């Protein structure tokens, strides 16, 4: 091995390690800070997080879980049917609808949420978790429809045709033959829908009014905005950890589909 390649290897490892420490340290610090108490380490901060006046309550967590479940289920349903339609069928208006779906990417959140707020009021879904979920599903559609269309297109046609020869109707072909074949796509879409809906802040901030309907993110942020003067930073970090742990666990288990998902979605979307 030449001297210069040895030097470059060393500089690579030193730079890499230093950067990895920089990127990981805030995460590790928040875990540490959430456990540190005046006298040592313990769960006091978490206790305050769930009991103090400004803290989070069980119903906030239930709200978050409800919104996430509705969003994941709704996204999977709409994107599976839509992806199947776009990937396997030709019908009038198909290309226009696909283009419109992708156009959602061009019109970001912040610019139409005011109108969505008014619209949800008209249809009686103001300040409701269902209304919020519908909006989150809509914002998930460009990525998830694109992902599912590609998944369905990749399934060999013979598989579908042989099922129909065997007497399956369209719906049972979709359920019994196609769905197992597109499972990796479904996992990616579901994972994305969960991560987005679980940690979303701006849409709930605008669409939810009453503290009873708040999601956990809103409730934790509220610990900062509602407190005049002193902020309970330690309990705040406990809240951060509480919100982040499910996402980090999911990320650890499903890193592969997470990475594949947002590169394929982002590159072509």
């Amino acid at each position, binding site marked *: 091995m030449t001297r210069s390649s040895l030097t470059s290897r060393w500089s*690579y*490892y030193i730079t*890499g390690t230093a*950067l*990895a420490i920089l*990127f*990981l340290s*805030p995460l590790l*610090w*928040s875990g540490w*800070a959430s456990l540190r108490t005046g006298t040592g380490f313990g769960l006091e901060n978490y206790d305050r997080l769930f009991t103090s006046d400004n803290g989070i309550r069980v119903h906030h967590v239930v709200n978050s879980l409800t919104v996430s479940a509705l969003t994941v289920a709704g996204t999977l*349903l709409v994107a599976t*049917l839509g992806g199947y*339609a*776009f990937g396997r*069928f*030709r*019908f*009038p208006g198909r290309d226009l609808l696909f283009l*419109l*779906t992708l156009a*959602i990417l*061009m*019109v*970001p959140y*912040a*610019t*139409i949420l*005011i*109108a*969505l*707020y*008014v*619209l949800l009021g008209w249809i009686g879904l103001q300040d409701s978790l269902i209304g919020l979920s*519908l909006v989150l599903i*809509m914002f998930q*559609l460009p990525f998830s429809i694109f992902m599912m269309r590609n998944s369905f297109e990749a399934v060999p046609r013979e598989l579908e045709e042989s099922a129909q020869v065997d007497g399956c109707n369209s719906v049972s072909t979709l359920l019994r033959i196609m769905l197992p074949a597109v499972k990796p796509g479904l996992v990616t879409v579901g994972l994305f829908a969960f*991560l987005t809906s679980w*940690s979303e*802040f*701006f849409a709930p901030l*605008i669409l939810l009014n009453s503290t009873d309907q708040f999601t956990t*993110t809103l409730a*934790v*942020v509220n610990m900062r905005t509602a407190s005049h003067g002193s*902020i309970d*930073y*330690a309990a705040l*970090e406990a*809240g*951060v950890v509480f*919100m*982040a742990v499910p996402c*980090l666990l*999911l*990320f650890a288990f499903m890193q592969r589909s997470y*990475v594949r998902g*947002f*590169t394929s979605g*982002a590159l072509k979307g």
Partner: protein
Amino acid sequence: MSTLTPPRSGKARPLPAPEAPRPPRRFRRSAARSRAALGALYATPTAVMVGLFFLVPLVLVGWMSLHKWPLLGAPTMNMPDNYTRIADNELVESAVWFTVKYTVLMTVLLFAVAFGLALLVQQRRRGVGFLRTAFLLPMAVGFASASLLFLGLLSDEIGPISDLLRKLGVIDGYVSWTSGSSESALGSAMVLVLWRFAGFNMLILLTGLQAIPLEVYEAARIDGASRWQTFRRVTIPLMRPTIALVLTMMITGSLLAFDQFWILTRGGPDNSTTSLVMVIYREAFIRLDLGSAAAISVALLAVLVVFNVIQLGVLRRRS
């Protein structure tokens, strides 16, 4: 779905019996028609969602921008007032300048860091998987949570940063990073965004880098190109679509900045870190003037659409 019937054939015919010796063309056409109907049926939920929650609000926001639209009570038409008042609104003016400044600084810095990281983890070496995961992990934390994390990290009460810098002698006394001065507030937000989003952009640039065939590099090496020449003449031109995509996403994201300022700096000190989206929120839910908020939204939307069209143009020229 009523437009499915082709004009020539008039009413739908009953499906031909399979044993009858019919011309195969007609059979195929009617089968295709029912298949098209089926496809349209599967696409209906998507169409409803896109129509109701995307197209309607898009038109509505334009319609609202032409009205005096209070949060409660009936709206009244006030045609160009909401737009002309944008020009008189001093907070809008300062927010525009701040948002543009933030966008330029953030895009340059984030691109440099993300590209640097992508080049660092480009080759398969021992430990590269660990590095990629380390850079990506902040992405798993929600942006609002990440902002709160940094609020604590930068605070003087429990955060280690001030203590560390005091020990190193960089600062002395008490420094409030998030609300002390407009520069430090902006800097805090930028460090937060770098931490949270560098890995994501690294990943997209990395897929672009890996799509370049190895033969191209070999050819460059045989031609005697230096490392820098290869980077400038081979890597950068072949990466153009990916770079265009990443830059557009960074610019769009920065123009829409909200969470980091709302949570970390609260727009202060003295409104010096108030972004445009914060102004939209303020107009709508603090000043209770939805029409004015809609007008600013429409203006912002127009700028973003222009950016996206330019990006599509750049991407299409390549392919």
